[in-house]
């Protein structure tokens, strides 16, 4: 519908854009083309320049240098009615209902009144939001908000659809649905730009553009990049703690460019031509392998933090216990009878769709929420009676919010040292050690809020472990960071676990979930599965009939199986 198929829907040529006095431009000499009828992925970590590019394409920003052309004219003067734009935040009016949001966007777009209802019907069916049309947008779950955002961007069929991280903060299930919806649009000949920090999404695009620090480091079909890692990827089976020690050792070797844990195995990316360790099986490469190779390979396996961390004594008692944890908000039960124990030195993952009760459980276990029933213990301390002792023995880190952005790096360290009872020489030593381990020296006087994402990540971890707690609580610890920073982070965690530290982690990243020893899946306030990543995959393979499923496949299959079971029970009743 946009004329000649090979004419690009949008084109950037040598575009540079700076903000303020920042030394590094947000976009640096970027050229690319977006074609109609194709899913184009814009991939990169937070701060890589994805949002800047989308705002340039939407005509909201002017480039400093270069040209941005959209639908045949400069972006700033392009026909806006032909562009659908879904911003990352603030796209919806949270105090309006679903249908009011749609009406508002229809009016803003000047959609003729007679065609409106028909359009709304289609969009409500398309997004499966008909049941919720009178609900306030602010009360929708993360996934439903994104669907509504998409519907609002589609009130008038656009020729170019710009989606700014539609998958962020959204569970794998909703992400898949969203992805499926956008795929349908492609058949109408719409050009879609989908920006993401998830590399598995990128791998499914027709064409991807990889951004890092404002530079385009790859543009083309994802398969072409993946092929670069061909013949270099292996899988090495290893069990329990042994696989963590093996990871530390192997990642340090010269010929190993990248090593990650995948359930009860290691995934290795070898340098070109290097022989794999004995017992390793060749596996097909993934997009992420090639991406990491392009970025210069993963970090080493040594964790200076773990090396200086005191061994957590083994008392034989579990490190974390949940005994029938239940939380009700009025008549709504957010978590019901959650029970599990985590032994010392284990990484335990909490997985579940948005709003399923995963965060509620997490909050009850770190003392942020009182359970309505049941008990939680951390390092042997009851969260009900011995809150102070329990809190002293846990370290808490949430990627998004755990620092004071308007305080300097040194002040953040000093505050957290003081809060955890470190004083005098002990505090000074702890701060010096953290500064050295996490290479924070050059940043000490800078505000934490202005740090590069990777440094902020290191500082967050430093603040959480400065008092050497035996238990760590991680709430989506690496969302939005690039794969290298994520590997650095997990190298430390991997090392700490070998010293006996116990970790409870919530995540939407399946790659992160693979690091877990065991995973608890929570859905509709109840625990529906508990087991190692490989057990969950096996279970899903059994029930869903999948062969060699990924953890994400397993997650989706488990939830769908539950959904049909509940539906059948409901129909029977």
């Amino acid at each position, binding site marked *: 519908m946009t004329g000649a198929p090979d004419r690009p829907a949008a084109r950037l040529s040598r575009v540079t854009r700076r903000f303020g006095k920042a030394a590094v431009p947000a976009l640096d000499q970027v050229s690319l083309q977006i074609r109609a009828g194709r899913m184009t992925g814009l991939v990169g970590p937070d701060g890589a320049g994805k949002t800047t590019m989308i705002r340039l394409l939407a005509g909201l920003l002017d480039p400093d240098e270069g040209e941005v052309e959209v639908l045949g004219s400069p972006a700033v003067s392009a026909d806006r009615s032909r562009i659908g734009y879904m911003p990352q935040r603030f796209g919806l009016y949270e105090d309006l209902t679903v249908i009011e949001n749609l009406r508002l966007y229809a009016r803003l777009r000047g959609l003729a009144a007679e065609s409106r209802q028909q359009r709304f019907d289609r969009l409500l069916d398309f997004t499966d939001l008909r049941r919720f049309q009178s609900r306030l947008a602010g009360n929708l779950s993360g996934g439903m908000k994104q669907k509504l955002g998409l519907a609002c961007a589609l009130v008038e069929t656009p020729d170019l659809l710009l989606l700014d991280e539609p998958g962020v903060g959204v569970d794998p299930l909703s992400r898949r649905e969203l992805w499926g919806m956008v795929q349908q649009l492609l058949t109408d000949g719409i050009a879609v730009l989908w920006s993401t920090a998830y590399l598995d999404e990128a791998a499914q695009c027709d064409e991807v553009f990889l951004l890092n620090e404002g530079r385009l480091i790859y543009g083309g079909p994802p398969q072409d990049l993946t092929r670069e890692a061909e013949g270099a990827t292996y899988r090495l089976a290893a069990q329990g703690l042994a696989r963590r020690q093996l990871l530390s050792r192997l990642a340090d070797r010269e010929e190993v460019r990248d090593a990650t844990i995948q359930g009860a195995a290691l995934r290795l990316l070898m340098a070109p031509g290097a022989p794999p360790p004995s017992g390793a099986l060749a596996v097909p490469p993934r997009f992420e392998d090639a991406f990491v190779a392009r970025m210069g390979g993963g970090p080493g396996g040594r964790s200076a933090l773990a090396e200086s961390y005191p061994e957590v004594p083994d008392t034989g008692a579990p490190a974390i216990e949940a005994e029938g944890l239940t939380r009700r908000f009025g008549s709504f039960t957010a978590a019901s009878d959650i029970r599990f124990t985590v032994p010392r030195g284990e990484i335990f993952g909490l997985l579940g769709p948005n709003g399923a009760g995963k965060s509620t459980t997490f*909050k009850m276990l*770190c*003392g*942020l*929420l*009182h359970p309505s029933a049941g008990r939680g213990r951390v390092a042997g301390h009851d969260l009900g009676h011995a809150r*102070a002792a329990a*809190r*002293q023995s*846990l370290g*808490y880190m*949430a990627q*998004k*919010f*755990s*620092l*004071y*952005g*308007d*305080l*300097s790096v040194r*002040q953040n360290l*000093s*505050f*957290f*040292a*003081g*809060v*955890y*009872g*470190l*004083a005098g020489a002990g505090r000074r030593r702890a701060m010096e050690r953290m500064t050295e381990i996490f290479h924070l020296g050059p940043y000490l006087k800078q505000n934490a809020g202005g740090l590069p994402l990777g440094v902020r990540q290191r500082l967050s971890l430093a603040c959480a472990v400065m008092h050497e707690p035996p238990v760590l*609580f991680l709430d989506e610890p690496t969302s939005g960071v690039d794969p290298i920073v994520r590997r650095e982070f997990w190298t430390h965690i991997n090392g700490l676990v070998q010293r006996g530290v116990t970790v409870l982690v919530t995540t939407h990243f399946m790659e992160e979930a693979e690091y877990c020893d065991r995973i608890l899946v929570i859905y509709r306030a109840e625990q529906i599965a508990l087991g190692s990543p490989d057990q969950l995959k096996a279970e899903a393979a059994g029930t869903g009939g999948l062969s060699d499923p990924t953890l994400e496949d397993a997650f989706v299959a488990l939830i769908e199986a539950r959904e049909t079971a509940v539906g059948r029970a409901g129909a029977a009743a």
Partner: protein
Amino acid sequence: MGGRLWAMIVKELWAILRDPRGRIILVVPPLMQLFVLGFATTLEVKNTAIGIYDRDGGAASIEIAQRIVGSPNIRAVLPLYSEAEARAAIDRQKVVAVVSFADGFSADLAAGRPAQVQGIFDGRKSNAAQIMSGYLSTIIAGYGAELAGQTASFSTVTVHWFNPNLQYLWFTMPGLVVIITTISGLGLTAQSVARERELGSFSQLLVSPLRLSEILIGKIVPPMLVGAFNATLYLVLISQLFGVPLTGSVPFFYVSLVLYLLALAGVGLLISSVSQTQQQAFLGMFFASVLAILLSGYASPVENMPLWLRVVTEAVPTRHFLVVSEGVFLKDMPIADLWANSWPMVLIAAVTLPAAALLFRARME
């Protein structure tokens, strides 16, 4: 406990002082407020014009008119020649008042009969009209007293205690100390918890071993320090630069100031605990401070309020602290009286602080 609390207080102080703009905001707006409020809320009426409609034209009316012309508070005098002209002058706001002498005014006076001067005032400018009425009465009564003095041997002398020359700055400035303390103390505490909630670092604070009391004390001490700093700034400038006499006990002023700041901190924390965002906290703080200032007696005397409202003002700490401030500045109020106006603030703080702690605990989840 000491170390954790100290870390918390230091962190809160950093949060206020680290930003250079934050440091400027602590000093510059209070100074601007002092000068602007000091000169803008004047209770004197200068630079006004009045009209004189003299149907008499005798010696006495001319004498009074000349005294009016000579008053430093009156800029111009407009001679008027008819009722209609007088009405028009007030309608068009050319004058704020018209002084009208009846035909035969001077003759009546000379004959010792009662004589009357009529004053017509613009009721739309009630404040200026009232003050102008006071000036005119003084002038006319003065003339009357002189005349009477020739025949009688006594006269009335009014003496204004504590502010003998009725200098309006003496009256307004001690009140400004109270207002600046209210705004800075309440503003910062109201923002403190709400800011943390909005940034998302609140959870981080709650999972740390910090006790509830440590978090709350950590949140109120820095705003109290800032409030005390601003009050001191005003105390020094008002007494040294504006020359308002500081006659009472300064140490007791500080005792009372601390009590006042504690009572305020409770209110600020209540607002902050209820607010989800800094914006809500700001609106809540605005509401509370306007209410506090209106009910304090700064804008209009508490004695003029209806009884039920007077009872309500007892619960407003600002009202009590205003009495203390005025007492310390002008009246050399004895310690016993200062204390009598200070202990209600202890009661108020004993209600607001625990209420804030309870609400804070309830809203933690």
